[in-house]
């Protein structure tokens, strides 16, 4: 390890110097983030092992083990279909709609709600090891993906039982899921930093996600009606994350607009995540 450390004081003599300094800071931050991520990727055995241990620990004393994740998903899905099935709709179609909606929504809720307290949960590791921060991000991402895997198994069974035939459109849904997976580490990083700087956000975000379920077309269907649902559908970013997975299977169409919006949101979140990781990764140890 080698290094000269100093407290640089940027004094902007004019606007150009200020812009140059800002650009240099951003480039340095991006380099730092890339360094952290590449180190974490080389240590993939660490976060894979820890994520598997996490899942095992959560269900170690139970009879069903991680299968409880599948039971939870099916039970909630059944309850929503039983309670909210609109009059006149066919039960099978609505079941498929809710099955996919809940799958994506629960995944998004889990990664956002849990990531706010990520660095606090990893405090002993952060204060005692030199592991890159992105290791903790990937540990949580993999944990959430494993948990979602059980729900996906339940979802596929429900889709087949509801009469949705396997066809080429499912590949677009698979691409939608893949896109969500790509955005996952960035989302976790951004909310983890939010939680480190603003501890109250753990409860604010938790409450917002609980309320957000009712403002997102998880179990209600938007058919072009006016009112709150119109705005909740169009101006809610979560809508598009749901639609890229749901629309191809439910209607057989390719939701280009939803894919485009999801792509732009994901890129923006990745940009913020890289800047936060590069700029503040060494400060986190003093914040938790």
């Amino acid at each position, binding site marked *: *390890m*080698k*290094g*000269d*450390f*100093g*407290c640089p004081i940027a004094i902007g003599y004019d606007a150009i110097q200020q812009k140059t300094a800002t650009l240099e800071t951003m480039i340095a931050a991006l380099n730092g983030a890339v360094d952290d991520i590449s180190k974490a990727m080389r*240590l993939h*055995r*660490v976060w894979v*092992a*820890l994520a598997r*241990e996490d899942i*095992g*620990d959560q269900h*170690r004393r139970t009879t069903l083990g991680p299968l409880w994740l599948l039971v939870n998903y099916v039970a909630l899905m059944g309850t929503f279909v039983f309670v909210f099935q609109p009059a006149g709709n066919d039960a099978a179609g609505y079941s498929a709609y809710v099955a996919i909606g809940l799958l994506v929504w629960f995944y998004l809720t889990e990664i956002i709600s849990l990531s706010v307290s990520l660095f606090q949960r990893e405090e*002993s*590791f*952060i*204060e*005692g*090891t*030199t*592991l890159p921060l992105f290791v903790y991000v990937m540990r949580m991402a993999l944990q959430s993906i494993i948990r979602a895997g059980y729900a996906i198994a339940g979802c596929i069974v429900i889709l087949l039982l509801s009469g949705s035939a396997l066809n080429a459109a499912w590949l677009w849904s698979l691409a939608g899921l893949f896109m969500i997976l790509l955005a996952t580490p960035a989302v976790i990083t951004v909310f983890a930093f939010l939680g480190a*700087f*603003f*501890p*109250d956000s753990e409860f604010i975000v938790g409450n917002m996600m609980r309320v957000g379920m009712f403002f997102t077309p998880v179990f209600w269907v938007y058919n072009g009606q006016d009112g709150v649902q119109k705005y909740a559908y169009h101006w809610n970013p979560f809508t598009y994350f749901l639609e890229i997975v749901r629309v191809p299977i439910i209607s057989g169409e390719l939701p280009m607009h939803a894919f485009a919006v999801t792509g732009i949101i994901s890129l923006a979140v990745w940009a913020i995540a890289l800047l936060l990781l590069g700029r503040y990764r*060494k*400060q986190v*140890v*003093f*914040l938790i």
Partner: protein
Amino acid sequence: MVSIKLHNISLVYRLHEKVTLSAPDRRVAGPGGRIEGSGRKQFVQALDGISFELKAGDRLGLVGPNGAGKTTLLKVLYGIYEPSGGSIAIEGKVDALFNINIGFRREATGRRNIVLRGLISGWTESEIEEKMEEIIAFSELGDFIDLPFKSYSQGMAARLAFSMATSLDPEILLMDEWIGAGDASFQDKAKRRMDELAEKAGIIVLASHNESLIESVCTKKLTLKSGQVESLTTKPIKRSRTEKTVLSRPR
């Protein structure tokens, strides 16, 4: 060549007043040191002007009252805290024992914990497998190695942690008050292993309040006070006579 060179290292961090809806919390988190400034701009001067050099075979004991900066300095050497000023050059593979519970999973067996801890320290699976029996033998845990970590006493956990940290021949070993948990016979065994490590041209930095431990293990003693070097004592290997050098604090 294994070496540590620190020149005028300082560590200053701002006390972040977290944006919160709750009443202001005046407690100070993080490492010790002096608090400077007032109001919203408060800074902790955790380390100030620390300079020293260690070469192969040196065993440095860090002493000082609580909050003097011993653990903070160890964490700077390990790379957890990035210094605010000065320069640092470390040659050699560094391993550290700060807290015996870090990296251990309570539900997993000792054997599984060796694998996890090894991965965290950057070992490969084959390196861990090669050293497994040696680590278990040195820790003297016997059949307990296949029981969950939560069934271990503090002493057993310390033995396992020390055994692992020293088994892959770290060139530089940093330790923070680890030894208190082990029994007398294990402490003797641990001292012998540290001697072996230092003789193999390694460097040991040990922070402790236990003066007799520092005297028996270390060849140099650095006394810290409020984040500054108060004195650096160098002792001949034979430990017959103590030569004391008081360093002037760099400004």
